[in-house]
């Protein structure tokens, strides 16, 4: 692309080429909308929340460090906005307030390339049962399986230890398999 990488575009926006922010919107509109739809589900104003993410990103673009990747930075903003939206909807302040998983060190399950069949099964299960997962497990699943991030990037987005990402993904996979099995039993 003529505009360069996300990081190069972000630097040019920082230097005053505000119009180029449109390039970043174009590149992330679909991704963040999918993230919002999967994470927030029945939230009617998901599109508005995504809009707010871009406004926040533009307002805070000078805080972006060009030596790091742009993607986790904007996803971090999205995460904060989505969590705020969930809090408003559930009128609860306890979402992600404190999590025992982040307290103690874990032996994280290493990132593995699941076999193609297993991957296909898991994705099919995801589509059907993602909504049943709690928010704290749903989010790493979306970022890992649907947004293609690795553990380190997810750790940066969620501000949790890398080992905790592995633990949450492992628990989410187990839960999804359980949902899938019980669903099959019913059929």
């Amino acid at each position, binding site marked *: 692309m003529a505009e360069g990488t996300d990081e190069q575009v972000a630097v040019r926006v920082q230097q005053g080429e505000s119009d180029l922010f*449109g390039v970043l919107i174009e590149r992330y509109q679909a991704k963040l909308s999918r993230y919002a739809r999967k994470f927030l589900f029945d939230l009617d104003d998901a599109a508005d929340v995504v809009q707010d993410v871009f406004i926040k990103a533009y*307002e805070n673009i000078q805080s972006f460090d060009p030596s790091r990747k742009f993607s986790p930075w904007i996803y971090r903003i999205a995460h904060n906005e989505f969590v705020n939206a969930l809090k408003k909807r559930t009128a609860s302040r306890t979402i992600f307030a404190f999590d025992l998983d982040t*307290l103690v060190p*874990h032996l994280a399950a290493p990132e593995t390339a699941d076999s193609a069949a297993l991957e296909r099964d898991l994705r099919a299960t995801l589509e059907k049962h993602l909504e049943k997962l709690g928010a704290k497990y749903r989010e790493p699943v979306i970022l890992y399986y649907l947004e293609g991030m690795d553990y380190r990037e997810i*750790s940066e987005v969620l*501000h*949790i*230890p890398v080992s905790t990402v592995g633990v949450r993904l492992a628990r989410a996979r187990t839960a999804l398999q359980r949902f899938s099995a019980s669903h099959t039993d019913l059929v």
Partner: protein
Amino acid sequence: MNAIKKGEVRMRPRWHFALLTTLTVSGVVIVGLTLLYATSLAVFLLRDSGALFATDFGQRGWFELLRMLPWFLFLFILVFVVALEVLVRRFAFVYKKPLLTSSLAILTFIVVAGVFISLTPLHRGFMFSARHGQLPAPFEMLFAPPPPPDLYRGTIVDVGPSTFTLSDEGRVGTTTFVITPRTRLPYGSNFKVGERVVVIGDTNASGTVRAFGVREIDEYASP
């Protein structure tokens, strides 16, 4: 994008974020230094009271240590450790680690550094002023709390066949102790005038103080 083009949404200037970072780092430095001061003061007070050395006398020594722990300072330290954790958790090198790991790293650092700082003359000047009534009452209580009834610390001014007399650093005048076969002497009984010791002693009806345990104080460990 329209809102941006129309100027309805504005970029926050770079100095805004530089200021936030500076404030956070300043907060970390201030809270960290306060923690170091409080921790070193807690170690200093335990050392100065003699309680830190009394553990050599067994269970009763440990009880003295527990009784002499500056709980208010410990609570203060705990609150500031939480505050420091909250401040540093904004940085990637901290939030990528489990909370327990980073908290233990902070605690280990402040305890080790606090022990070293407690060996410097930093707190001694305040303690001297407190003992001479030159500090406001709360500070006087902090730096020169009343000595515990059965824990003594001072310099030997006289040695007898089975007694010795101590010029106590926390009390006015001298106290004479009787050494009995049951007195615990982890470093022996070859005491000399001018040596500094810590003693747990029980006062009997006649006013004599029977030494439950006596040990020298290492000059290096006790500035």
